[in-house]
């Protein structure tokens, strides 16, 4: 068994001081002592409804939220809240809202070059620009995007750029917090396919936060189901979805809205394509 890349032990986050009005009732226990680990190359999902503590956990891992208690270790060494540059580089995050996660005043090229320079990953400006262009290739965006600002792009394109930004510094772990839930259905698929391709091609390790079991099914190997700040069930995605052991997982599965299966023979369409396409064959 390989050593875990990320190991979370007894993580707890409490908001509010517990002093003042309401006393201890004013305290919100967002995460109540959870344990999980993610192996290298694995895609691990935290699933739950709003208020379950899944995003707070993600923020702790990414270093954006200070835990009240517990430890997080990464590649064998403990992660302090005050991380060094190397630790900050190794864990990157993709956010839910592609409209507020890019600086509207900077061109895409300038934003990527700045990150590369801050992390001293490019020897010269020219090398940084070259690397930025490669990143756009990686996420399937045209190189012309380098000179454009975020407003020139649709939600799905911005999310691709958000992924490029996160990958710029060669992270070992990508934390993705609901990366497709703000996107339209037709756009979601292209971002999911991009993340899957990156997993396969780069061997990227992912911590994936979602409320949507169907999305988790597409991308992840293992899943932990969270409710009320605790992990109620953990296991391989296929097993948890087909034979859930916790009552809450069953409730969640029962509430998932599914579509009836398509009753179309999609192979048949080869012969029925438009005349234009057939002639090019």
């Amino acid at each position, binding site marked *: 068994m390989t050593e875990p890349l990320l190991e979370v032990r007894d993580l707890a986050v409490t908001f509010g001081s517990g002093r003042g009005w309401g006393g201890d009732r004013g305290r919100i226990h967002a995460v109540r002592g959870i344990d999980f680990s993610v192996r290298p190359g694995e895609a691990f999902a935290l699933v739950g409804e709003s208020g379950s503590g899944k995003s707070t956990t993600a923020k702790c891992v990414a270093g954006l939220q200070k835990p009240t208690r517990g430890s997080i270790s990464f590649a064998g060494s403990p992660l302090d809240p005050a991380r060094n540059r190397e630790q900050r580089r190794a864990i990157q995050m993709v956010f839910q809202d592609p409209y507020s996660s890019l600086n509207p005043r900077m061109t895409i090229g300038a934003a990527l070059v700045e990150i590369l320079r801050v992390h001293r990953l490019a020897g010269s400006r020219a090398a940084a620009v070259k690397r930025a262009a490669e990143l756009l290739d990686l996420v399937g965006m045209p190189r012309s995007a380098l000179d454009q600002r975020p407003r020139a792009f649709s939600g799905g394109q911005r999310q691709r750029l958000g992924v490029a930004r996160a990958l710029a510094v060669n992270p070992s772990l990508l934390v993705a917090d609901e990366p497709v839930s703000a996107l*339209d*259905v037709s756009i979601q*698929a292209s971002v999911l396919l991009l993340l899957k391709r990156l997993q396969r091609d780069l061997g990227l390790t992912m911590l994936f936060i979602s409320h949507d079991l169907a999305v988790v099914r597409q991308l992840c190997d293992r899943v932990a189901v969270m409710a009320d700040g605790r992990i109620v069930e953990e296991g391989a995605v296929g097993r948890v979805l087909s034979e859930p052991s916790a009552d809450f997982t069953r409730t969640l599965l029962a509430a998932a809205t599914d579509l009836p299966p398509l009753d179309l023979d*999609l192979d048949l369409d080869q012969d*029925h394509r438009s*005349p234009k396409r057939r002639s090019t064959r």
Partner: protein
Amino acid sequence: MSRPDVADRRLLSVRDLRLRVGGEAHDVVRGASLDAARGEVVGIAGESGSGKSLTLRAIAGLLPTGVTVAGGDIEVDRVDVVKAGPQTLRKLRGATVGMVFQEPMTALNPTMRIGRQIAEAALAHGDLSRSQAKARAIELLERVGFPEPARRYRQFPHQLSGGMRQRVVIAIALAGNPSLLLCDEPTTALDATVTLRILDLLTDLVRDLGIGIVFVTHDLGVAARICDRIAVMYAGQVVEEGPTAELLRRPRHPYTLALLRAVPTRDRDIDGLRAIPGNPPQRGEELPGCAFAPRCEYAEPACRSEIELVPVDDDRSTSCRRHSVLAAMAGGHHD
């Protein structure tokens, strides 16, 4: 698309509706047609910018400032909404049409007890005394699923969860005894388990009160769960309309098919997922013919000229000129 079997239960008829924003040269809704009857839930499904919410607002005569009806007819319970004056519309809203919006917190007054908000709506639409209105509010709270309604009457919106707030909004919409409920993404801001309970409540209301519902959503899974019929909109056009199971299992428009193949489901792995190439058109772009043609793998040159919604099978319609290609792909398991 007219269905003789529902003629006597007909509540809503939208024909070739065209909506235009201010000085823009092209319409944002470009010929939408839709019917709804008592006892059924009709869904309008589409992505952002498809015109589904504007169509719904037009039905209630509640178009935002700057958006005008550029053509077509809307008839709600024999009232011509397009020609109606403000007074007729005010009477229509509440007494005939109730509305439920996406964000329950913004639809409610945060400083007023929920019971009183419902009672005020009852007073505005009915010939009731204050005490009768209060009794009606308590009855409505019970109807939408509040245990101990008399006690809950005195609560404020901030004391309630998102799901319970949405129930209050539904109670307000029902206060005037409408026959048609217009719902704009009523569950989009809610968790899956809460969504399910709200959908169950709406289904109960249709069955028990015999009302009709028009349900706007971007989520085909939600539409599959609650709608009897679905109209799919793309870039301001209704591209396909029909009974839910038929439409989702054997779509007759390539856009519906593409959407269905782009939705992640629990029984399909990622290799079965297909992204739709290209991007939806920008608002105000000129789109001759079928708006989906530039992204459509079945498109032929004629698709760029005029299109119309035509009947197919007994009970469905599609705007795709190549619908027979999709019909030929339909499996042999007709049910």
